[in-house]
């Protein structure tokens, strides 16, 4: 009898806390949720009639966007290489970026799994999970602000997302305005290691365009290993390298325009490899390094 009473009390308490949670939700989401349909990278229509509460965000950019609009608490799982913001340290990891542990995913009982590659879509859907697949952004700097708005719609936090997205756009415009005063167009070469360089259809190329720089790898698609002869022949005014010693210690390179201008710049900015809200901060820092005279 006594045991039953305790169970009953416990049950009531549980219900009460549930209710309490239910009541607090509308206060965190200032916007009323309106159902949305998102078109994924396979052109499938994914419908959201309720905002997902338990999201597995298998993508660094999605995690950063959700945290930036104050909805990071919805993330119940992510992958090993997600390290920003610091709060992600306590979120369970369900695989590295290329391998997903399906058992751990199902165990977390998510109501949305967001993936950046199509590999696991079928397995996840067979397990009865809702999957949103949007390819990670390889180009289109301006589109990042739209990604932020999309997440705002999905989780019903549109006004906050609009703020962050607007901030992103304003920072972009502010860079554009400062750059507009420049008359000269410099040529640039980026080495991410071993002479691998971003070509004309990459996010980095968009960054170069924004900063009024012309990429010497204009005839390369995606990331490729460029020939050393080509680097010397095209004689970049600015070299951005993950390891500057390759360029400063070698007279073949230090005699290039970038070397004589003192524009061999170290670039190892993680934010420039994740198409999230921090991306524009990375661009601003790069702009400061390249044009210290006009960016304070």
């Amino acid at each position: 009898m006594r045991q039953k009473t305790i169970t009953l009390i416990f049950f009531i308490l549980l219900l009460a806390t549930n209710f309490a949670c239910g009541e607090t939700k509308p206060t965190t989401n200032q916007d009323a949720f309106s159902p949305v349909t998102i078109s994924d990278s396979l052109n499938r229509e994914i419908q959201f009639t309720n905002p997902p509460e338990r999201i597995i965000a298998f993508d660094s950019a999605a995690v950063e966007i959700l945290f930036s609009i104050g909805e990071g608490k919805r993330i119940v799982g992510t992958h090993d290489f997600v390290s920003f913001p610091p709060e992600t340290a306590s979120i369970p990891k369900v695989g590295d970026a290329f391998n997903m542990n399906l058992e751990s995913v199902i165990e977390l009982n998510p109501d949305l799994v967001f993936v950046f590659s199509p590999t696991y879509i079928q397995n996840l859907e067979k397990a009865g999970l809702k999957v949103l697949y949007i390819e990670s952004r390889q180009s289109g700097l301006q589109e990042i602000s739209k990604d932020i708005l999309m997440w705002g719609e999905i989780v019903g936090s549109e006004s906050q997302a609009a703020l962050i997205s607007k901030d992103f756009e304003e920072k972009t415009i502010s860079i554009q305005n400062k750059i507009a005063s420049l008359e000269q167009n410099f040529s640039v070469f980026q080495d991410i290691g071993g002479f691998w360089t971003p070509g004309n259809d990459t996010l980095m190329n968009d960054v170069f365009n924004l900063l009024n720089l012309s990429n010497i790898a204009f005839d390369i698609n995606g990331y490729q290993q460029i020939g050393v002869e080509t680097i010397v022949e095209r004689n970049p005014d600015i070299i951005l390298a993950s390891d500057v010693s390759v360029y400063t210690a070698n007279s073949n390179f230090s005699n290039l325009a970038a070397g004589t201008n003192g524009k061999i710049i170290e670039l190892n900015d993680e934010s420039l490899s994740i198409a999230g809200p921090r991306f524009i901060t990375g661009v601003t820092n790069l702009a400061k390094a390249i044009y210290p005279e006009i960016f304070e």
Partner: protein
Amino acid sequence: MIVNNMSFYDSPTQILAQKSRYNRIWIGILFLTCCVFIGICFGTIHIPIKHTIGILTQSLTFFNLGNDWTNSHEIILLKIRLPRVILACIVGAALASSGAAFQGLFRNPLADPYLIGVAGGAGLGAAITILSKITLIVNLEFFLPIAAFSGAIITVTTAYFISLKSGKVSLISLILAGVAISASTSAITAFLMIRSNPDLRPLVSWLLGGFQSAEWPQVLILLVYLIPSWILMMAYSRTLNTLQLDEKMAKQLGVNIEKTKVIIITTATLTTAAAVAFSGIIGFVGLIAPHCVRLIWNNDYRSLIPTSALLGASFMILADLVSRTIIAPSELPVGIITALFGTPFFLYLLRKHNA
């Protein structure tokens, strides 16, 4: 005519054999010279032949042919393309001669310079260097060859001591130990790759080999290893011929087998490790070049080692030329080219001479 001038003791067949041996080497040298010239004349950047010859004559002889070329063309030719061609040449020669020596020592047609663990160890050394944060402390360009070289030497030494029993090396144990250690080092490399966040492309292209960062000092360092190794290999080429009979028979013929093993293993390993340190793991050349020579000519190690080296060097220069021009301005790792373009050529030879 010639026979009359020779000493009384040489039989005519011996003299003819010796003569054809030298002929083969001269043909090899001629072919290599052509390849070096082709390698220098073509590249991503078009430099007119007239300018190429002008720049080369000026730098080699201080003889001025009127310099109407641009400064960047001079840098490209003398400081980028020329060291690259020479490095490819030396690495090709190193891999092919080490491969020939290993095939002779192990009496195994599948032997290549990486057989006893050089590639696995070097790959692991490079993976640790490229993927770890060590580059924040040391200069990658300087440290990478050292790490690859040390990795290679450590794995081979381990395999060597495992196969050593009462002062004698069992060659079968050495192969098995080498293969086993390579498997575990490759596993660790794969583990590091799958567990690391940074971009893997630089490491993958290193693992497939290439000469992107060729410079004159590398050529000099390699020569320091190669020249003594080649002299030793040539000195032991007769012994390798005898070894083809049988270990016991060779011993009866007065061959010091244990000494031969140590010399060949040490020289071939050092040469290969030095080559791998600067150019990554370039497959196929070390295995196939000696077999091509065998199919065209014969199995005499006195000519097999030098002609394999010459053929390996020529082939490597051409493969590197393809790797830097086929998708210009981008490059492909040369290891892809050596296997892709070498296989049809080798299969053709195999079919023609075995038919």
